[in-house]
């Protein structure tokens, strides 16, 4: 019996298997606890989860909405993944996507006398620059002054959110309207639809391009090697001749640029106008997505899809059986906590058999 058990644990500790089994267990745990809460409410959890599944994958329509939710989650998840690999903690994806949405809208609402493609690219570029700058500031403060980037990115999230509120109430407010919203994005700056009959836009394809790009940069370029070495051990990297500050700054800016696409694509592809609080909670979701995705770009895509499905399905679950949407947060949170718990237990108690990564995030120092 004991031998059998230890054989199982050995399998579980092998890198390849644990990379799949750990997130799976975490998600199952989250779903199980949420099921208890759902049952407490007098709803059959299986029924609720069936609604959730159908709501996210049941038809072409629901699938396309799931994919639409997947896009911003994937971009912000990639942003966090990249920053994390470089040893900086970007909790500011939300702020970065807000300022990006703001600047993209700014370019996108004016009919410019230029070809549509150029207009779209300009709007995207404006968002990218804004997002990168918004992330550059905390990166700069961290690199030069040692100010904790977790703190600055979070504070800047709030500033960005109110900045959007300010904009749609003043200079970006639709003329002749009383509601705080921007004018609609003109046709030439909108992301084209790629699946006729649905709302799925070209941003979906951009996700894969950028995921591959992040992967390629991290593991197949010198710059990526520098980023990873700074993330793994800052002092060793410095000793090895890496300009740590420069790498940190660039990593943070690149991370902000990735997060910017979440905001820009949502505005230019889906909502077509800027509203107050148009995306809430993506900063934290992004971290959960990145961690569950094993801080790997492709893993990030998978978990972003899972979270997108959860988010989208939760709406139909709320409508059909009355389970609050916020239960999705509980599932996410418990998944994250149980995953880091499992990894830690494995590393502490089954050290002999443990091969591969450290406790998630243990290489992040906060100074």
């Amino acid at each position, binding site marked *: 019996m004991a031998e059998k058990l230890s054989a199982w644990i050995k399998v579980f500790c092998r890198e390849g298997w644990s990379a799949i089994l750990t997130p799976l267990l975490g998600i199952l745990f989250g779903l199980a606890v949420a099921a208890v809460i759902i049952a407490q409410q007098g709803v059959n959890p299986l029924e609720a989860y069936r609604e959730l599944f159908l709501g996210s994958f049941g038809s072409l329509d629901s699938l396309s909405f799931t994919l639409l939710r997947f896009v911003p989650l994937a971009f912000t998840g990639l942003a966090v993944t990249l920053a994390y690999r470089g040893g900086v903690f970007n909790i500011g994806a939300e702020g970065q996507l807000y300022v990006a949405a703001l600047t993209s809208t700014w370019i996108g609402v004016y009919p410019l006398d230029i070809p549509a493609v150029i207009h779209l690219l300009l709007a995207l570029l404006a968002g990218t620059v804004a997002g990168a700058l918004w992330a550059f500031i905390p990166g700069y403060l961290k690199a030069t002054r040692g100010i904790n980037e977790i*703190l600055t990115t979070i504070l800047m999230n709030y*500033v960005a959110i109110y900045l959007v509120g300010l904009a749609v109430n003043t200079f970006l407010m639709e003329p002749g309207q009383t509601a705080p919203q921007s004018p609609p994005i003109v046709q030439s700056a909108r992301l084209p639809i790629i699946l006729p009959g649905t709302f799925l836009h070209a941003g979906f394809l951009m996700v894969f391009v950028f995921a591959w790009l992040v992967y390629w940069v991290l593991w197949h370029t010198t710059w990526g090697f520098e980023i990873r070495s700074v993330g793994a051990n800052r002092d060793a990297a410095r000793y090895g001749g890496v300009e740590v500050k420069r790498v940190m700054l660039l990593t943070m800016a690149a991370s902000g640029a990735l997060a910017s696409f979440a905001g820009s694509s949502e505005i230019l592809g889906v909502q077509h106008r800027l509203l107050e609080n148009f995306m809430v909670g993506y900063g*934290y979701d992004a971290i959960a997505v990145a961690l569950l995705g094993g801080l790997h770009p492709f893993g990030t895509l998978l978990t972003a899809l899972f979270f997108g499905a959860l988010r989208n399905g939760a709406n139909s679950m709320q409508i059909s059986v009355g389970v609050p949407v916020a239960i999705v947060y509980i599932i996410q*949170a418990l998944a*994250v*906590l149980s995953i*880091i718990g499992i990894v830690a237990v494995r590393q502490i108690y089954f050290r002999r058999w443990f091969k591969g990564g450290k406790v998630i995030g243990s290489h992040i*120092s906060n100074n």
Partner: protein
Amino acid sequence: MAAILAIISSLDFLVAGIRMTTPLLLAAIGDIFSERTGVLNIALEAMMLIGAFGSFIFAYYSGNAYVGVLAAILLGGVMGLVHAFFTVTLRCDQVVTAVGENIFALGVTSTLYRILLGATPLQPESPGLPQLAIPVLDQIPVLGTVLFKHNILVYLGLLMVPLTYAVLFHTTWGLKIRAVGEHPQAADTLGINVYLVRYACIILSCVLASLGGASLTVGGLRYFMDNMTAGRGFIAFAAVIFGRYNPWGALIATLLFGFTDAFQLRMQAMGLDLPYHLFLMLPYVVTLVVLVFMIGRSVVPRSQGIPYVREER
């Protein structure tokens, strides 16, 4: 300009400033204990949210605000135990753990609120903590009204400042706490139980943050909204850093933020021709600016963020 001066000099503004400082002060003082033992507590936001929700719900159902306070203490303690278990025993990354807890608090409070109270357009109100005027002292002009006519949580926050200072710098316990934060190995060698000190301080930190949350609901608005802490946990964390891990510094920092918050609320109410988002932004901008310009490098407890492993060496 005259209007601004009128706001700042009004008694009502000063009282509100103290009241807005309290949630931050409680959370910040608690965090000092945690940080001084070398454990980052970025989960303050979670603890505040759970304290705000827990105290509201228990006060609402029992009809007694003090029951709410008690609930906040208990819930904060339980969350603190969980946080300590993850960061000290399991040695998980302190930031990642906190992020998980923050999402959890957001989800669990929003979900339970809907399950328990439904989605009514009417905002249910709980009983609030009574104002306890302190005899004699409350008769002092100005100061009496500003400082001595508050609820119990406000007094607790203010009292914790000298108390924490005394404990940290003038008792053996304080010495142990600081030793654990600076050099856990050395502390261990001297026979200090590093794990025990960390557990105690983390739990204390979470209980105080939870009480800070309670001061928002039963000690203030008497109703609960989703995510109503709105980043106050992070601002308390910021206050600790630019208060240099010293309770007096934290007091000054949280007062600055509390008064900015009270100020922006009054500016909004004045109906100036300025968009109110500008004022909403103000507390966060002020915190950022102070963080950037007013402090040099804060001296961080040396073992901060690093789990202690006893077996090694």
